[in-house]
């Protein structure tokens, strides 16, 4: 009995640093955010308790739903491009030759650039007056007047941002896919070849199923990242036109900082976190089912 209690205490002592870390950096901020969501607070004046008003206000807030809808659209559009594109590039570059290694390095390079820096870079590339994108399209005879890529048309703006983000993060998925493909024992592939399987048959029936856990992991990371998109839209479109490209996090930011409505921003954050949690649960369930 005594020994059992002593072992428990030792176990708790081992766990203490990690538990303390989680309590200080995760649990406390979360509890504080819940508290904040139940108050109106501008930082400049004393907080006032408003109960669930901030949540009910969010449900009546058209801009919140516009932002959420746009964020989902962005996520639905960009995720397949990142997964399929990353996987195709990984298939092309998985074998270790000099040229393929070089290609992998080039595709991966933008991943190490900050998202803010890459967004500014693409903002200038898409500039209607001095941007290289319009200049190239004009020189190729594809357009006869500059395209207004950013902040004028919602769909065009969305696609322009998607292009910039795909350039920036495609290499991340590619690298993980390459690692997963390279981990497949060569004998399996070779025996399939001996059995007369074509390249695409091997990809479809062998490589893809064996790398499915990685595909699902990259999809999960990509979906969560896209649902939390902020920097690229903040810098490239500023939410324009008419707030239609203001993502959910952008709207949380606007309320929390420039507008100094911390309580409302916290309530929006919690709603967004709940939505992401639902997506994550669904994806995890799908991942489990596929691995059975």
């Amino acid at each position, binding site marked *: 009995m005594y020994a059992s209690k002593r072992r428990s205490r030792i176990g708790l002592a081992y766990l203490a640093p990690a538990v303390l870390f989680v309590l200080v950096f995760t649990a406390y901020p979360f509890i504080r955010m819940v508290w904040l969501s139940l108050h109106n607070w501008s930082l400049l004046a004393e907080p006032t308790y408003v109960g669930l008003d901030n949540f009910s206000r969010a449900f009546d807030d058209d801009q919140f739903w516009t932002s959420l809808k746009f964020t989902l659209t962005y996520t639905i559009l960009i995720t397949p491009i990142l997964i399929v594109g990353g996987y195709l590039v990984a298939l092309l570059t998985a074998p270790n030759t000099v040229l393929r290694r070089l290609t992998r390095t080039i595709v991966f390079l933008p991943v190490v650039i900050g998202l803010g820096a890459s967004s500014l870079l693409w903002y200038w590339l898409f500039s209607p007056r001095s941007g290289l994108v319009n200049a190239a399209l004009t020189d190729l005879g594809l357009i006869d007047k*500059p395209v207004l890529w950013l902040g004028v048309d919602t769909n065009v703006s969305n696609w322009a941002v998607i292009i910039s983000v795909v350039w920036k993060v495609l290499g991340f998925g590619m690298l993980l896919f390459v690692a997963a493909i390279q981990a497949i024992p060569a004998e399996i592939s070779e025996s399939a070849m001996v059995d007369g399987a074509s390249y695409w048959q091997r990809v479809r029936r062998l490589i893809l199923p064996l790398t499915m856990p990685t595909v699902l992991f990259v999809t999960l990371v990509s979906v969560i990242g896209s649902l939390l998109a902020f920097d690229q839209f903040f810098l490239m479109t500023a939410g324009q036109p008419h707030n239609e490209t203001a993502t959910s996090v952008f709207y949380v930011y606007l309320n929390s900082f420039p507008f100094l409505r911390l309580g409302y921003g916290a309530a929006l954050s919690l709603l967004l976190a709940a939505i992401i949690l639902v997506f994550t649960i669904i994806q995890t369930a799908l991942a489990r089912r596929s691995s059975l």
Partner: protein
Amino acid sequence: MGRTQRVRRLAVASAAILCLVVSGCSGDDDDAGGGGSPSGAMQMWERTGGNAPMVDALVAAWNAENPDRPIELTYVQHDQMVPNLSRAIASGDVPDLMGLDLIYGPQFASLGHLEDITDVIGNDPNLATASPGHIEVATWDDRLYGVPLYADVSVLFWNKDLFREAGLDPEVPPRNLTDIHDMAKAITAVGDGNYGYYLPGNCAGCNIFTFAPLIWASDKNAKIEPTGPGDEPLVGTSIKPVLEWARMMHKEGLIDPAAQAETGETFAEVFGSGKVGIMGTGNFNVALLQDQNPDLDLGVTVLPGLQTGQASSFAGGDIVTVPKGSDRVEDAVDFMKWLLTDEIQLEVYAKELNMTTRTDMLDNEYFNANEDVADTAKAIPLGRTPYTVKFFELINSPNGPWLQMLQRVYYTDDSIDEIIADAKEQMKTIVAQE
């Protein structure tokens, strides 16, 4: 000591070290310059931006004269200034001096977060001629909370080369909005990618800086912003006609269509391209243009109204204030008085070709040696600034009613009356919110 005991002690020690690290990290942090320093140095916060060389020069001059109470200057990212300041105020760890974007003056003063300097600064004679726009927003309930730190003003540029090409007299600037329209039409007709006028379509701040003065000039009583709850926004006889004028300028193709995507990132470079005939911009663009495109034949005049003789400008820049809680109010006010002295106005502000912050210092040797700067400085006495406790949400936000109203005017066929009514409603809702 047994192995189990050693492991247990190690685990407890690890937990204790983590506690120390965490508590150390969460302790008071003076890195950002918060709090009065016992060493005699005053801490000052200022936002980043093109103002930095000017503020650096002022602080260097002050420190040279006041080695016993120097200023330690910290720059805060300009779009993080208000949140950082709010956090500092909430935690009580404030700087002694704070360069505050002047449009936030009423908001911070109304909430009691700035020191009332009215009695400390007393009857400083230089206050009488300090930039009226700055002093207005530094005043709340007839009490003074700051003085101008630096001034930005909006003016109208015209490209004399394009005027010549269009067959216009390059020495005659537009004197009213009809002139701007007619001249812009002639310049646009030149073709080759030239456009007569420029209105940034996706930049709220650029428009309050260069478009609002057209409204104020046309009716000095016109008001765009509601000061607070219950106050009527968008009032005055000039609101509708000036918006109609802006729509006409767009409909007739006198403005570069690329301007619709202008978020402000390239606003300062537009006129330097040499492809725009007339454009509202700011004093900061004079030096930039002379540096980047010295061959461009530039003319500078005030932003006009509907009728000849009407003129206005946006008074931008910063006021310097003392946050509530500073124990260096008297030293801070000494710095404010020093900023307004003749010597500093001439030998720091004017010498560096920055706008003086006193209207009686415009006629000076430095400005007079540079015609464009002298013409720009004429806008200082005309400067006006929106006076509201919710400037960002109402005006500056890319998602706010001001920009939404202008975008509907510029790029849709919606009724102007309907657009104004919608914007009024949005503005009133915003100021009514807690």
